[in-house]
């Protein structure tokens, strides 16, 4: 639709002509729309951070203890991976803008590989936690049995699995979007002159890594000091 779109001209009473903005080929409009969509993502994760902060204020010591049991090396490694993937994504967009299609595709593939590495590390972490008996639905996170953790730790891990899970879901969606982008580039539907799709997916990827930049310290780093977190 709308590939040979020629903008209409409106004329005022003095005969001055004005170009009419149509919905077709509206790069700025597409950008604005996606920024607004990013805003909804921020509100969504914002609500979870609100809940997290609230429970952290109620159960500070439990949160710090639970956080201390997470693997900071794996979490930190994943943070670096995501930051590098944001770089490759951005470089890909720059290459697309100057018309280097091959370079852009290479960078997108690099981003996809880094995203898969991220998910792999995440899977290792979750498996380790599962083997330690800490996982949704296991006894440790249920109330009223011999293995039950304290309230604060149950809440910490409940939110940990929810938020990192939802973040991982966004990574998976991102991989899908990038594969679709590659397909569109190959079909020459996305090119130097028409790269709104690439721009928006890069924006999406930036948000995904930005969320992680907040998730990482909130979950992994609060327990990085003394195991008791200095709460005593």
């Amino acid at each position, binding site marked *: *639709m709308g590939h040979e779109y020629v903008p*209409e001209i*409106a*004329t*005022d*009473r003095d005969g001055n002509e*004005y*170009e*009419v*903005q*149509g*919905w077709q080929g*509206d790069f*700025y*409009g597409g950008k*604005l*729309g996606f920024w*607004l*969509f990013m*805003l*909804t*993502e921020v*509100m*969504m*994760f*914002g*609500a*979870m951070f*609100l*809940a997290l902060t*609230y*429970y952290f204020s*109620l*159960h500070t010591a439990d949160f710090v203890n639970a956080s201390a049991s997470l693997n900071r090396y794996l979490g930190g490694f994943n943070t670096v991976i995501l930051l590098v993937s944001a770089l490759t994504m951005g470089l890909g967009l720059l290459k697309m803008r100057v018309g280097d299609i091959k370079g852009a595709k290479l960078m997108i593939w690099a981003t996809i590989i880094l995203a898969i590495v991220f998910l792999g590390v995440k899977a290792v972490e979750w498996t380790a936690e599962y083997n330690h008996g800490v996982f*949704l*639905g296991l006894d440790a*996170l*249920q*109330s*009223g049995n011999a293995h039950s953790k*304290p*309230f*604060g730790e*149950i*809440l910490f891990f*409940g*939110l940990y*699995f*929810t938020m990192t899970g*939802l973040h991982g879901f966004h990574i998976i969606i991102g991989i899908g979007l990038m594969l679709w982008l590659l397909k569109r580039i190959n079909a020459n539907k996305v090119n130097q002159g028409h790269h709104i799709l690439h721009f928006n997916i890069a924006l999406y990827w930036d948000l995904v890594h930005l969320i992680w930049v907040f998730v990482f310290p909130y979950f992994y780093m609060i327990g990085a000091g003394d195991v008791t977190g200095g709460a005593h």
Partner: protein
Amino acid sequence: MSKTYFDETHCAIGHPKSTFMQWMLTVDHKRIGLMYAAVMFTFFFVAVATALAMRFELFAPGAQFMDGDTFNQAFTLHGVIMIFLFIVPGIPAIFGNIVMPLMIGAKDVSFPRLNWFTFWLYIAGCIIAVSSLWVGEGFADTGWTFYAPYSLNTGTNVIMTLVAAFVLGMASILTGLNFLVTIHRLRAPGMGFFQMPLFVWGIYATAWIQLLATPVVGITLILAILEKYFGIGIFDPSKGGDPVLFEHLFWIYSHPAVYLMILPAFGIMSEIIPTFSRKEIFGYRTIALSSASIAGIGYLVWGHHLFTSGMSDMAKVIFSFLTFFVAIPTGIKFYDWVATMYGGKIVLSTPMLWALGTLITFAIGGLTGVTIAMVGVDIHLQDTYYSVAHFHYAMLGGVAFLLFAGMHYWFPLCFGKMYSEKHAKNAFYLQFIGFNMLWFPMFIAGYLGMPRRYFDYLPEFQIYHQVSFFGAVIFITGLVYMFVTFYKGIKNGEKTTPNPWNATTLEWHLPSAPPPLENHSKVPYVDFRPYEYKHGEPVVKFDYVTMKRID
């Protein structure tokens, strides 16, 4: 005769031959709006029927033909359909789609295919919601608010309803996003924000609420689902979670949501009053900005739903105080509308009758809201029929009445035909009388202590319930009468000209009624204000072919 949007359309995928597939795949904003209307009113009547069933049950004390559990499911079904399927998407999805692009001189919305996708997302949400009636342990019995911890413990099919509400929320977000970009990008040349018709302002303010508040309830519903499936603990007191947190997160969206419902309705009022007073609107800027400020203040008042849920006294006082502030921009709008009518040549057509009726019913709905915004009074009236009556005066007597007003107003635009004024007016009077008879006794019953959501009551409340019942019968008769009038209008109403009301805004300057596929024959240059009248006649006149001014 020239082709209209009923004859041809653009499709999201391919170029199907059959008319049916053309409707299913259409990206035309006018067709999508009409389809929304058809689906919504189907569900609206289901919810009305449920409400009538509850009125039958309440006709006398004790259980007649519905036990308590069924009654719980009935009011949940009524609430879920009315809120999530009807009134939240309501005016934006119907008239935001049909007339908003016409009003700003656009060919369509900014993302027509997204609009098509959104419509089907909405349908998917509807199907999930309604199918939970027959799946599992029956429809949710939590009320439409899904308060934890009961919603986590009940055996009924809450999860499906939550999923449905989430999907419908997504549809709502995408509609708002689409409209925001449309209003920012596709206004005709020359049309600044303060030359937009006020309905567009209403849609604009609404779209921001849809965009910023809906994700919060979306994630709240997701968290509730995860809680039910995996027991993450966040709303479960047995694991240290706080059920009141659910209420906070829920109302952070759901209170702004009532402004999301009313703001486009106010926009319809602001269109109808100047048109039928044949006078420029009084205080254009104050109406436009009050829409924006209602949207803004609306975010800060959610706590007034929690006065009895356990909150610090300081927070209660602050939320109570902030809630009063909503009355200020609303009051400004009311005075502006009344001042517009002063000295105008008022034409009492059906849309104007509905608008005037709403001035009365919404004034009652709004002012009773101020009384329950007071902490002390609210402790007495919380969860009584008083709140029920307040809510329905504001929503049915405000939003739905103005939706009906808009339906009468834009009927000739959509169909190029006119309904019978005589029957439409009779239907209005029936509904107006029935409505007040139905809801006003509830203020008194609630004040005397009749709690909401009970299927049984003490004998002293019987008189109020019985008056309500007869009011409901009159109201529903009027409702059916109105839709029959519409149907007859569509079938064999008189043909109309493109501008039967002598209105001034751009949606009335189309080459034909109903409009052609891509709206105006040429995009006009806008160098005029939206409601310019002189001596009771519109100032701005267009040649509908060249779209040049000829006045």
